[in-house]
């Protein structure tokens, strides 16, 4: 293009010159004359380029070169801006990778949108079972339904692995034979289960995870067909699943065996315990499947009123369930917060650019005078800002990958099984696209304002000013103040939200769980059915272990329960208050724990009324029951529960309530107080045990001794874990802690950026007003007066932003309500404390500029021109 234009103009001049030669002018002279006659060739060319209107690329490259030179010439500005952007964009990219894993990427199974989960739901009372159904309901539906290609069920299980090394408890699952096929998972070795494997009494088979195969079995190439001992029985390994296979609804699993339920178990309609899901047939919608289950359960309700009154299935898409429940809300909150932080960072950079552009006014004026149009100048400024943002975006990838590594390192292996698409969270194409996208978007949006403001200029006025000390446009200054106020408002929203979340986290950690977890060691195990067939064996085992632990030096007290807090899935039991008939469809139930006499005193669970269990609650005597405070308050319509009798479970064992203890948290620190039934272990034998040992000091010192005490009773018994109770709580609380940590980091970042923003504006304002301040001081203003003037101006700006932020936060924090524990979304302390803190930080940020203003020497300032 450019050369064509040159050729055309050259032709013109030469043709003209030839005509001149023909009219008698000497050749050398003719060319000179022709050029003079033509006028400014360069200007004509520039005008041609403008007229042609397609010089975009050339201009772009020119601007990029120029912008790049400018960035290099101002290393301070560039460093601050790039770092700010890299932090802001990097945090977003890191969190986006989780948003991507949870909300955008499909689940890592073929046609994941056809996977649907089932759970029992009480239509009348609205409760759901938390992802499980009864076995009979499931198998009947499996036989009769027409909507599903396949349906499968599983039971989470911890499986004892013995032989080939120390006994080990492995997280695993018992799954129906088609579980893997339904998820489209292919083994890396061997096969998946067959229908034959899944029959009760069939030869025992097992599938290992790649991790277990490579770890415990050292990657034995002949693993298929090898016998391993699971729960004391021989299982033949038939397959190895790839390391990437996982199912977030099931959690971590490294060992699978077939479900293989007995006929009796399959026909059990009363116990709701079986997690189940299905794969829709092609063309069948979720709605159609829901309609079919509704009809199906209406029939069951008529046929089995005793167990199925009011019951139906809640049928939901597995994807949806995972997004809604399994960490989805937490990921979303983090994403919104980092989004706000990014806005703050961008506003900061836009402000820096505005400030810098004021000192470039002369440059633009000169270029304007030389014929650059406003559009052209604005375009150049926009290109410069885009360049800056792109550099920031590139640098952000560094922060993003650090951030992702940090989050991963903070996630214990136990939790990783619940991370959706775990192992697929990485710096991938979609994340790069996202980063590029937000970088360009922010660069355009936040580059536009400075470009628009600064390209507007009055050439004459600017060039007439004698020095670089031009005041810039009034509107530019106003824009900067608006930016800073908005920035502070956003930072206040972030800080208030983060404070609420962190406060809730701290309260949930600090609040008493109802027992004292400090210095308590927990040893968990499960006795195999094959070896311990009689109830008396179970009783003898726990008695013997307890007496051995009691004899250990350093064990202040000890007790045992069928299930300890934060020890994994517990048990529930249905009950009926004797003499109080149930309404149809009413099926009260509560978590249920069998405990030894000294369990409560060892855990330091408080007695509210009545008595603890004691030696009188022995095997063979009439059962005693202790209930939780909340249950005592709610389940007996205001009557005193002590002395009342309950009928428990399917055996209808009748027991008398002898005591009430305080509520305890069993699974979750944000748990609300609930019903709980305790019975004496001597009267209600259990196969699972959690031994609790309270020591006078660090409980971990006792771990080996406790392990030996158990092995002294049964040398082959695997122990699933020996850990301080505080550790068990910490592991479960990982997600909350991670969110709280991120919130602390993001809120500091937000506050820091906000402070930098207000500092920048005030410093710039003072430097522009040096002349004015000089006059004021010459006329008698004291330094203190000048200081308070500057501080006042800064504070006014900050308070405006803080007020707007508080208002916005009042609306925003309502969305956090479900995540908060014992903190209201409008927590007064937070809503007073954060603005106050911000005012102080703003004041501190204004102090330096104010101090500089105070030190202005009137003589120097007035001569400054």
């Amino acid at each position, binding site marked *: 293009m450019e050369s064509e*234009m040159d050729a055309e103009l050259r032709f013109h001049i030469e043709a003209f010159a030839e005509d001149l030669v023909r009219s008698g002018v000497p050749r050398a002279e003719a060319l000179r004359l022709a050029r003079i006659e033509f006028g400014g060739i360069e200007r004509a060319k520039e005008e041609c380029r403008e*007229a042609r209107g397609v010089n975009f690329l050339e201009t772009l490259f020119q601007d990029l070169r120029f912008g790049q030179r400018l960035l290099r010439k101002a290393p301070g500005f560039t460093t601050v801006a790039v770092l700010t952007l890299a932090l802001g964009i990097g945090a977003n990219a890191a969190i986006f990778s989780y948003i991507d894993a949870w909300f955008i990427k499909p689940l890592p199974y073929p046609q994941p949108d056809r996977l649907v989960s089932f759970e029992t739901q009480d239509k009348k009372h609205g409760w759901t079972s938390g992802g499980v159904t009864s076995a009979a309901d499931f198998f009947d539906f499996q036989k009769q339904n027409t909507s599903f290609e396949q349906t499968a069920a599983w039971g989470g299980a911890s499986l004892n692995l013995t032989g080939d090394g120390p006994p080990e408890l492995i997280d695993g699952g018992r799954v129906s034979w088609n579980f893997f096929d339904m998820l489209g998972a292919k083994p890396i070795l061997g096969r998946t289960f067959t229908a034959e494997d899944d029959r009760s009494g069939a030869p025992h088979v097992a599938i290992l995870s790649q991790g277990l195969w490579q770890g415990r079995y050292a990657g034995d190439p002949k693993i298929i067909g090898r016998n391993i001992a699971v729960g004391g029985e021989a299982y033949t390994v038939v397959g190895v699943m790839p390391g990437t296979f996982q199912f977030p609804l099931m959690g971590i699993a490294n060992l699978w065996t077939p479900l293989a339920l007995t006929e009796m178990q399959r026909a059990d309609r009363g116990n709701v315990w079986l997690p189940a899901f299905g794969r829709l047939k092609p063309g069948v919608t979720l709605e159609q499947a829901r309609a079919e289950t509704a009809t199906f359960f209406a029939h069951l309700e008529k046929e089995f009123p005793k167990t199925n009154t009011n019951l139906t299935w809640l049928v939901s898409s597995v994807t949806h369930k995972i997004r809604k429940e399994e960490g989805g809300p937490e990921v979303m909150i983090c994403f919104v917060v980092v989004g706000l932080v990014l806005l703050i960072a961008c506003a900061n950079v836009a402000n820096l650019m505005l400030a810098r552009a004021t000192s470039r006014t002369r440059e633009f004026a000169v270029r304007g005078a030389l014929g650059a149009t406003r559009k052209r100048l604005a375009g150049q400024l926009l290109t410069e800002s885009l360049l800056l943002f792109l550099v920031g975006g590139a640098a952000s990838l560094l922060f993003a990958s650090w951030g992702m590594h940090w989050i991963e390192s903070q996630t214990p292996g136990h939790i990783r099984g619940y991370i959706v698409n775990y192992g697929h969270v990485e710096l991938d194409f979609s994340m790069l696209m996202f980063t590029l996208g937000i970088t360009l978007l922010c660069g355009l949006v936040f580059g536009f304002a400075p470009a628009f403001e600064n390209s507007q200029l009055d050439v004459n006025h600017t060039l007439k000013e004698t020095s670089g000390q031009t005041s810039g446009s009034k509107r530019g200054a106003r824009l900067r103040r608006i930016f800073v106020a908005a920035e502070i408002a956003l930072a206040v929203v972030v800080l208030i939200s983060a404070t609420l979340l962190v406060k809730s986290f701290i309260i949930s950690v600090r609040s008493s769980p109802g027992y004292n977890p400090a210095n308590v060691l927990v040893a968990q195990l499960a006795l195999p059915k094959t070896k311990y067939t009689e109830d008396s064996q179970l009783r003898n085992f726990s008695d013997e272990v307890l007496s051995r632990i009691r004899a250990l030096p350093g064990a202040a007290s000890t007790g045992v329960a069928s299930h300890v807090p934060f020890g994994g899935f517990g048990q529930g039991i249905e009950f009926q208050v004797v003499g109080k008939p149930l309404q149809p469809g009413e099926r009260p139930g509560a978590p249920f724990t069998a405990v030894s006499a000294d369990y409560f005193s060892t855990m330091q669970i408080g007695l509210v009324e009545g008595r603890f269990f004691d030696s009188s609650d022995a095997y063979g005597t009439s059962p005693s029951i202790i209930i939780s405070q909340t249950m005592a308050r709610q389940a007996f319509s205001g009557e005193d529960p002590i002395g009342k009798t309950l009928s428990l479970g399917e055996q209808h064992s009748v027991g008398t309530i002898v005591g009430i203890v305080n509520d305890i948290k069993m699974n979750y620190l944000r748990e609300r107080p609930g019903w709980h039934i305790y019975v004496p272990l001597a009267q209600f034998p259990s196969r699972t045990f959690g031994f609790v040992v309270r020591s006078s000091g660090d409980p971990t010192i006792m771990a080996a001794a406790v392990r030996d005490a158990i092995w002294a009773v049964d040398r082959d018994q695997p122990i699933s874990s020996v850990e301080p109770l505080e550790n068990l709580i910490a592991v479960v609380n990982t997600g909350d802690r991670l969110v709280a940590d991120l919130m602390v980091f993001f809120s500091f970042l937000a506050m820091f950026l906000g402070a930098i923003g207000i500092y920048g504006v005030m410093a710039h304002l003072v430097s522009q007003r040096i002349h004015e301040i000089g006059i004021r001081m010459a006329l008698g203003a004291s330094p203190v007066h000048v200081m308070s003037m500057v501080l006042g101006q800064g504070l006014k700006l900050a308070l405006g932003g803080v007020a707007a932020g508080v208002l916005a936060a009042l609306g925003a924090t309502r969305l956090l309500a479900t995540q908060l524990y014992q903190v209201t979304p409008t927590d007064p302390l937070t809503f007073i404390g954060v603005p106050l803190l911000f005012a102080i930080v703003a004041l501190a940020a204004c102090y330096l500029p104010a101090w500089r203003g105070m030190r202005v020497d009137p003589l120097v300032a007035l001569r400054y021109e």
Partner: protein
Amino acid sequence: MDKQLDLLQGTLDMLILKAVSLGALHGYGILLRIQQISKDRLEIQQGSLYPALYRLEHQGWIASEWGESENKRKAKYYRLSAAGKRRLQAESEKWNRMAKVIAGILQTTPEEV
């Protein structure tokens, strides 16, 4: 009638369109053609000719192609497009109406008011 007139604002485009309507011309040729038709009574800034050509081409009223000049040199030739033809017609009508109105006003004598 010897003094050259400065070109009225906005008339250069019309003159270019008229010039190329009589046959394809290169830039220098257009300059000569306008001077020839106007009998050298119009002063055209040579430097402003090309931006105008580029603008007209960008608007689609003239089209260009490279060809050979009368003295066997490569030159860029401009010709009127269909849209340009319509444009020229509309512009000429507008101009004539305007000229008539203004002439009428200027010829008005005091008695006629």
